[in-house]
């Protein structure tokens, strides 16, 4: 079956086999490798994307059910010449080590700041508690997000 949806502002069509996940379809059929596959059970946030404005784990979205949705992935954040401010902050504050969790964190942070431009430390921690990072211990991530406090994403 084919699904039609908007991905990063572009109309896309993708062949879908059975109940496979949006994550698999983004990565393997559309070549959007930014969302990462780390647990396939919604417990790590590495595959985080935004579907119709909601922050979701793309591994838990059935691709066949994404017909007609608007999907934003990490690839849709930077422009040709410029990083998204969240990406810039992550780079500058050393919030990236192995980087496998980074795309999910970037999307979740952008979503947070869009809804809450100046989150407190506990708000940042809770809003990003669905994204696991195994390398940084979260310190640099916190500093990166805090550095954007007040800045509109």
């Amino acid at each position, binding site marked *: 079956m084919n699904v039609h949806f908007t991905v990063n502002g572009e109309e896309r069509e993708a062949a879908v086999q059975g109940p496979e996940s949006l994550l698999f379809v983004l990565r393997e059929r559309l070549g959007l490798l930014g969302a990462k596959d780390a647990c396939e059970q919604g417990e790590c946030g590495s595959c985080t994307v935004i579907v119709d404005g909601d922050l979701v784990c793309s591994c838990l979205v059935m691709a066949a059910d994404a017909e007609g949705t608007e999907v934003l992935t990490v690839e849709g954040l930077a422009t040709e010449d410029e990083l998204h401010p969240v990406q810039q902050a992550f780079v500058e504050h050393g919030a990236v080590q192995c980087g496998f969790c980074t795309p999910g964190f970037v999307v979740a942070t952008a979503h947070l700041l869009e809804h809450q431009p100046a989150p407190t430390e506990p708000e940042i921690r809770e809003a990003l508690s669905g994204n696991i990072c195994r390398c940084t211990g979260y310190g640099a991530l*916190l500093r990166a997000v805090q550095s954007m406090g007040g800045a509109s994403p």
Partner: protein
Amino acid sequence: MSVAPPDATTAPGRVGSSTLRPDGVPKTKGAFAYASDLQDERMLWGATVRAPLARARITRLDIAPALAIVGVHAVLTAEDVPGLNAMGQIVQDRPVLAENEVTYWGQPIAVVAAEDRETARRAADAVIVEYGELEPITDLVEGHERGLVFREHKARRGDPEAHGEVAVEGYYEVGTQDQAPLGTEAGIAFPDTEGGVDVYAVSQWIHVDHEQIVDCLGLRPEQVRVHPAGMGGAFGSREDLSLQVHLCMLALHTGRPVRMVYDRQESFASHVHRHAARMWYRHEADRDGRLVRVEARVLLDAGAYTETSPAVLNNAVYFAVGPYQCPNVFAEGYAVQTNNPPSGAMRGFGAVQSCFAYEAQMDRLAVELDMDPVELRLLNALETGDRLATTGQLIEEPLPTRAVIEAVRSLPVDADRPGNDPLGLPGGTGLTTPPNSVVRGVGFAVGIKNLAFSEGFDDYADARVVLTAAGVEVHTAAIEVGQGMVTILQQIARTVLGVDQVAVIFDDTSLIGSAGSTSASRQTQMAGGAVYRAAARVREEALRRADGDDLTGAGVWRDGTVVATLEELCGSDPIEHEVRYRHIETAEPDEDGQGSPHVDFSVAAHRAIVDVDPELGLVKLVRIDSAQDVGRALNPQSIIGQIEGGTMQGVGLAVMEELVLDRGRVLNANFTDYLLPTFLDAPPVQSVIVEEPGSWGPFGAKGFSELPTISSTPAVVAAIRAATGKALTRVPVRPEHIVGIE
């Protein structure tokens, strides 16, 4: 000695500055290629048939039903392994594919290649395997008693009759921790047209992978090229082979590229874990608190095959006393063979297990002596000019043990008392714990570990530095696992050469010699040392060619004027130097474990502040303070990242991370039940970088990245003990242990 603020900077991009990592931009954009992202238009997908039992005879193996599935190209079993059906970097004893028997849960039995992932998985399901279950050996003590031991190691030093006036004794246990790198095992292999193969897969040491792959495939070394691939973390889990030989076999068999990406359960099943440990300790001291005698017996659960267990075991024994002086030591360790999941390298490598025990012992001793536990540690601290308690090795390099202890102690201990925000209380959003049910505790711990390889191993790293008109190329087989290798090598080359444009090129095994393993906290000194020296030779030649006195990106200078641009200098003839760098020789210890097996050491200290809900056994980490010996800080931001990240892995072991086993099977091989600390569990970490430059690392730098994981665990547990008065002799500490009911 100086204590550097973390934001100390020198020239941008050079050693000492918090230079930004060049792969940060592609990683934030989702454009960085990890092993699991590698693909090819012609590729097949691989899948693996795994044992559901920890110990069994294979009574029937029938691949026909899998082969009958449309789209399946190959189903391979042990009899298809072209060369040696055994892997292992110390002893080759782990089968590529199980033959006749399985000895651990998840052991690979067959591999398949098919047109797509779903077909490959269905084919794996369709392979018929029947088992005759055997009773697995899962108890460490039982395995030891039965003599199932891969390696034993003893350290006997001093007077067997010497005793102290004050003694403390206890048993300690460490559960099985997993590295849980976020990226699972993944890779792709391409057959060449002449019977050879190129493989791109997760690895911490491509050259040692290469040796084993060549043996297993029965090929000539030049027929196999092992390439580094982007990795979502490692922490020791990529030191041993996982899917590499399988990929190559399938690619060679089908003539097509073959790709595999493990799911999380396979990842848990397929890589080695941190050794579970059971330890007995007796510490004796004089009335003033000086250690007189330490006895220790350490059992490590090695699992079914050797892997790196001999080295992990030796390390556990070498650091059995920790960063303390003691004249009389009688320690022994055993790496025990069981049918539990295979164990091997994980950050801290044996030093983690001992540290949990000896730091608990130091606290007990302080209680017996009625002494401040930090004072007790300062009194016994091992420093330059002292001898390592277990081996008697003279410490010749800087070892600022007292400095790290003092640095942590001098940080203010006060922290906000818990308020009403549940996020600041044990139980978090679960709303379990009112502020008046909380007790605060503070705990302290110090850890030590060796740097680089030991025991006479020929430890070297190759690097090639090339100066062209476009700038500098650094070629290395060191691995960027996320720690920032790429940045450090750039900084070293820039600083030595004075040229800003530096590209680090991670070559495959056919293009560059080994860098040794990216582990043992060794690459800053080893690969960094090789780059430092190769760059220095390049600079010398550049100056010689143009008879100059300085080199920058503008070219060679003489008396303040550029006399040759890079284009003129090396536009048609690049300057290239390759260096094989070795640290000073080490030696195997004698039969009593005495000698000088190590080249260098690093120390770290942690202080943890916790709030505990004793009635429910829940813990909230308030803050962790840390001080870290780094020699010289080459990149403070990256150092802080290593301290914070390593500390959190120690926190995980302290309070939540453990593989739960039943008859050798892992009951929680998923991220729902193997719990990693979340953003809400992670306390702020305040870090002090202690600089006392070493003699041999580039610019005085020392490796250190394992250290933060070593002393954080005992510091957290000490804090929980301080809050609750419970003995807590096992990690991870579970709520039922704190409450005191099983």
